[in-house]
């Protein structure tokens, strides 16, 4: 619910800043690790958007996969089954470069 309210706030602020009067679509990047339940978030977003310029807007969720980067060989690879091991050099010093984000990417407004 708090996440849905923040999405509405961010979208409304962005639209207002661009002198738009109605939000049609909100595109959100949600990392796999954040454990977002799309159906639930879309439902909460609909409730929170009521009586705002985001009312009736479509919330599009793009679930981004977990991507690790090996600090040893710089290879980027999808992390499957939470196995943080580089498939190329078997390095175990892995930095997460995808799958942890939770942000409003852009909005479509008129």
């Amino acid at each position, binding site marked *: 619910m*708090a*996440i849905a309210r*923040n*999405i509405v*706030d*961010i*979208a409304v602020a*962005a*639209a207002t*800043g*661009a002198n*738009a009067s109605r939000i049609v679509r909100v595109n*959100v990047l949600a990392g796999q*690790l*954040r*454990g977002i339940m799309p159906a639930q978030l879309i439902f909460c977003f609909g409730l929170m958007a009521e009586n705002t310029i985001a009312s009736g807007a479509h919330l599009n969720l793009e679930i981004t996969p977990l991507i690790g980067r090996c600090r040893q060989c710089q290879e980027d690879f999808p992390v499957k089954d*939470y*196995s*943080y091991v580089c498939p190329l050099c078997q390095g*175990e010093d892995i930095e997460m470069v995808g799958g942890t*984000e*939770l*942000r*409003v*990417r*852009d*909005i*479509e*407004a*008129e």
Partner: protein
Amino acid sequence: MKINVMTDILEANDRIAAVNREVFERHRNLVLNLMSSPGAGKTTLLERTAQALRDRLRLGVIVGDIETTRDTDRLEKYGLPAVQLTTGSACHLDANMISYALPHIDLGAIDVLVIENVGNLVCPAEFKVGEDLKIMILSVPEGDEKPLKYPLMFRESSLLLINKIDLLKYTNFDLDEAKANARKINPDLEIIDISCVTGEGIPQWTAWLTECYQRKFGADSRA
């Protein structure tokens, strides 16, 4: 028209968390965000910790529960300054709730502030409250597969306390399996086995806590 945004959805929370953090720094508080499922032993751990740390580190607690002040009633018996936040329906504490609790606790009179989050393995991991470290408890009756089911919290935590190990003999909980699962999610996770009933592991836990405090404020600080 398309408008680029790229704003972090929890940015508003993170900003308040940063302000809380400044307040904690000013009072020289080490702040821990303690998370677990309901009934894993958060409050009992704090009772034990208060007894064990007496005269070494001064502990204070902010407790989040959906209803009742039972936890603060329990903690105050041990002389712990405790502030109760009843969240109503919210399943986690966020930075804003903590900022409202701060005027009710004398931060200058404590060294370590533990923020006892609402019992829940999901949402508390999402919201920073201004803590130095996130720590969590997994208790034996919950099962050894929990790290794989709730990866974010295990990933975000610095320390995992496996509690109720006195019950190991009555369950099919596999301690090695639990640790392997947790380290698969978070290879840097430190793990201590404890029992708040027998006291096993409590000295290791308070040593860890003391070391964190000294690492932050220098070895010549309290404790």
